[in-house]
């Protein structure tokens, strides 16, 4: 079935189908299922593969060495996964008649508590001058998905932030695949500190929405001109409490959504003493309301800030958001800029929050990279990194599930932040930083082919 099966760490390659040192006897690939558990690192479970092969040599020593080499690579795979700083080992496969590039997958070595890497037979044989250790059984844990060719899309244009950027791959891919995203537009001189921000990603047009709120006026909710602070619109939505009872805004429209949704708001508490409690609610076309937990906007800052208002499972045909605010005193005001709405339907959608990023010794133009590390030879886990022109890296503290994934042909994403008195992330000239989006898809396959 397979014309090529090999183990390699990039330096040492052991081809089990070369019929010189090895002969593949059987390989019945495991098709990884979706994980039972809830932890991240991909939605597909690891698979424990079992291959049977012969180790061959012109001498007995060569046969022994061939078998030992397999064990050494699998041992290395385990050491890599345990974080011992060695190079990752990958399993490479190519099925008979496949038109794809050779697929590969990272190995994690022996399964904890499982059998040895290799199980040797009781005897070995000599046939016409060849020494064979027959039917050696190899068992190893690998990641669930085989990876094939990489596709790139973008960069997108640099539209006025916040904007949902769209990039499209040249072809659609039906299987959920690891995705690397690169946000560009930063520079070590003009943006010496990248403020805490959010990346929201989706694979369909309405997965990521940036909604204006200015029109949601109601009693004590007014549009307040604030163009100087670089909001989403020239005005923000202001609530002025006249009592400490709760007050609800007008309707904020959004494109139809359903399922698990997350909501993020840009908020400014204009009071140094009044604390506001914000409860956002989704409402569908039939009047069904789902409310998020209440979130407190304390009086610690008079500047705009991004606030995660929570997530909820909303019914079909949901197209309205309202904001209910309760003030601790009938004084002060609270402003809302854009709302960011994220569909968290499946792994092709994500919300990633990151903290302030100090540039350290980075230079030149900078990119914020959300990397799956599925093809890395060194990194065990996905990473968020700030990378400069010399490929120097600053680590980023983030909250959210990586790796990102995508299905289909499109990626939609918005990255946005606030900065000091501004509703948007600004550079050293106090101008908005408008970022671009670039995507790399690692085509994934559950059935090796």
């Amino acid at each position, binding site marked *: 079935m397979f014309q090529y099966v090999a183990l390699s760490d990039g330096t040492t390659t052991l081809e089990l189908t070369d019929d010189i040192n090895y002969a593949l006897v059987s390989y019945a690939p495991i098709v990884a299922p*979706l994980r*039972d*558990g*809830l*932890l*991240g*690192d*991909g*939605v597909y479970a690891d698979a424990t593969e079992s291959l049977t092969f012969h180790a061959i040599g012109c001498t007995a020593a060569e046969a022994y060495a061939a078998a030992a080499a397999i064990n050494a690579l699998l041992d290395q795979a385990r*050491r890599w*996964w*345990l*974080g*011992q700083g060695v190079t990752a080992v990958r399993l490479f496969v190519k099925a008979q008649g496949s038109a794809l590039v050779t697929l590969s997958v990272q190995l994690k070595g022996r399964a*904890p508590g499982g059998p040895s890497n290799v199980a040797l037979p009781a005897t070995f044989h000599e046939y016409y001058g060849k020494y064979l250790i027959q039917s050696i059984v190899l068992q190893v844990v690998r990641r669930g998905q085989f990876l094939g060719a990489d596709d790139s899309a973008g960069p997108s244009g640099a539209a006025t932030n916040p904007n949902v950027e769209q990039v499209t791959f040249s072809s659609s891919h039906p299987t959920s695949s690891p995705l690397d995203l690169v946000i560009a537009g930063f520079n070590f001189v003009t943006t010496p500190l990248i403020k805490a921000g*959010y990346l929201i990603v989706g694979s369909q047009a309405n997965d990521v929405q940036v909604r204006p709120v200015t029109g949601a006026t109601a009693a004590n909710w007014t549009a307040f001109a604030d163009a100087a602070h670089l909001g989403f619109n020239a005005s923000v939505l202001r609530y002025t409490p006249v009592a400490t009872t709760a007050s609800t805004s007008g309707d904020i429209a959004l494109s139809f959504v359903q399922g*698990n949704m*997350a909501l*993020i708001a840009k908020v400014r508490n204009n009071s140094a003493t009044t*604390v506001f*409690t914000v409860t956002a609610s989704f409402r569908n076309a039939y009047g*069904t309301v*789902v409310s998020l*937990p*209440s979130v*407190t906007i*304390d009086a*610690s800052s008079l500047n705009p800030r991004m606030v*995660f208002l*929570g*997530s*909820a*499972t*909303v*019914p079909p045909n949901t197209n309205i958001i309202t904001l209910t605010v309760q003030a*601790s005193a009938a004084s002060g005001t609270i402003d809302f800029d854009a709302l960011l709405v*994220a569909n*968290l339907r*499946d*792994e092709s959608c*994500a*919300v*990633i*929050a990151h*903290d302030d990023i100090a540039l350290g010794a980075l230079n030149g133009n900078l990119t914020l990279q959300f990397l799956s590390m599925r093809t890395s030879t060194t990194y*065990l*886990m*996905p990473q968020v990194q700030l990378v400069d022109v010399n490929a120097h890296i600053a*680590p*980023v*503290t*983030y*909250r*959210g*599930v*990586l790796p990102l994934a995508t299905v289909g042909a499109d990626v939609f994403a918005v990255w946005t932040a606030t900065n000091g008195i501004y509703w948007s992330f600004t550079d050293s000239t106090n101008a908005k930083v408008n970022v671009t989006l670039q995507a790399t898809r690692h085509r994934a396959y559950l059935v090796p082919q």
Partner: protein
Amino acid sequence: MSQLQFATDTAAGGALAFDDSGRASSLVYATNTHGFAELRSSIPMALQEAFLRFDRAGMPHQRLNDGAGTVYEGRLEDVAISGDGIQSTALGYSRALSDAPYTALWSSADVTQWRPVRTSELASRTPELYQFDTNNRIQIALPQGAIYGNNANVGSQIFQKSEGGVRSIIGISFDAIVTLPANWIFFYQTYTSGFVSVASATIDTGIAGTNVINKFYTLGACDYVEFAVINSTGGNYTVNNAPNVWRVSITNIRVVTSLDNRIDTTTTANIVAGAGVSIPVVTTARMYVGQRLHIGIPAANGEGIIVTSITDATHFVATIAANYASGANVQAHVIYADEVARDLVIKTNALNPTQLNSSTALIQSPGLDLLNESYQDQYGADILTRLVTLGDSQTTPRQWEWAVWENRQLVYQPRGYSSRTWYVDLARPEIERTLNALANSVYADYQEPGGRTLRSTATSDAASIARYGVTRRTMLNVSSTSTTQVATQQAAQLNDTKDPIPRARLTIEAVFDQNGARWPLTAVRANDIIVIRNLPPTLSTTIDRVRILRAIRTELDVFTGVLTIEPESPLPTLAAMLARTVAPAWVTSPWWVQVGQK
């Protein structure tokens, strides 16, 4: 599909140290009524890396995130190395309230804590020339035949706050009956620790007769308060009367360390003495029936009156002995539990700034005046756990809850205030009932000011007694001299225990909201309400009695997707149906609900 990030930061708010989402081999986290509880995880790793983590300085912060939302956060407290890696346990930030003991006086009406000042403490004090008692009052009496020098030989009793306590005395109120010779002075003196004088003021001067007075004072911050009498006649004074004719008797004393919630209003019209007088004031905020108020002007003796009813926001009713012109002061010291909670936040944050958020925005006020509230070397968590049982000012007093959830922020609020409701379908119900936890009649032990134990009249829930066919009475220990506070706590306890805690084991596959939408199991937390929606229709008339539960603990195995919920007790309506079944003779495990996600 909900996926979680499992990460460790160098500290709360610190940099990301490890993202072990893909490396952990087991992970279980729990929530309880005090917020995030424990998170237990195992991560295979080489010995070298394991020891690096084991020996890491600081207080790492562990978290589970669903997107940017927080599913769990806690501080990494326990780390163990075993053969294949590291096992760690993080505990929620409610633990921060157990990091250091707390000693503070908030309010005291306990006269037994008063004592005479010794000459060795203050040379001018001569307790041997006076007679003292603290039998539900503070009395300083002049015995027959004693001779007192002019402006010397002071007799006094003193109250000292707990040594090392973090709060200073700043208020006092009391009634006094002053029967002193002419030109004897009754005064108070305050001190900081070590008898360093802060302030002194004359309360009353002896006249030929008796003065009945009521006083309300705010004080400069001090550690001791002393009531004293002194001969100021200009010469020696010899007592020729029978014993205890000359005396000062002080009752209804209240010493406080906070003025935040004091009543400090004024009358808005002239008041004529009488019984059941409607008294107009600027505001009746924080007044309650049974409360003792001071009314008067500073220059006069003042009068202590008891609120018998509150008509509206500007009128209350009391029996009053004297006439008062408009503008008279109406005052009382009031201490609420939320003040204690806020102070615990401030003190804990000052000690460990990264362990508890300084914000007190989520602390609500029960509006229940606490007459006797003092702590010595108690942990904040224990203090809060007691305070939430005290009830509040609602007509049917509610139980309260405290917890630390996201952002390490203390929440102090009525029980269930922010609970969400989840709907589940039962697969294999197992319900048992026991009357062991039933208490449908409650009385309280409390104290009179002199320390003697008093017992209140039992209050009962007639419906519960009728439903279960038995009166089960329990005693509630109330550390207070306030009968109002006793009544409130008694009502809160009765409301909480009039239905018994059943035991059950329920297996369900998912949770849904009221719209039927399926939610991730990570959304379920302690204090949430669980509604079982597929009970048999034959129970139609009493269906609501068994289907609504409150979770006090949830535990989610992130790898198996199994959620275990431990309910504390059903809402009150559950009790009746359970009571109709035959009670088992034994009481063993708590009541469990198991939720499995497939």
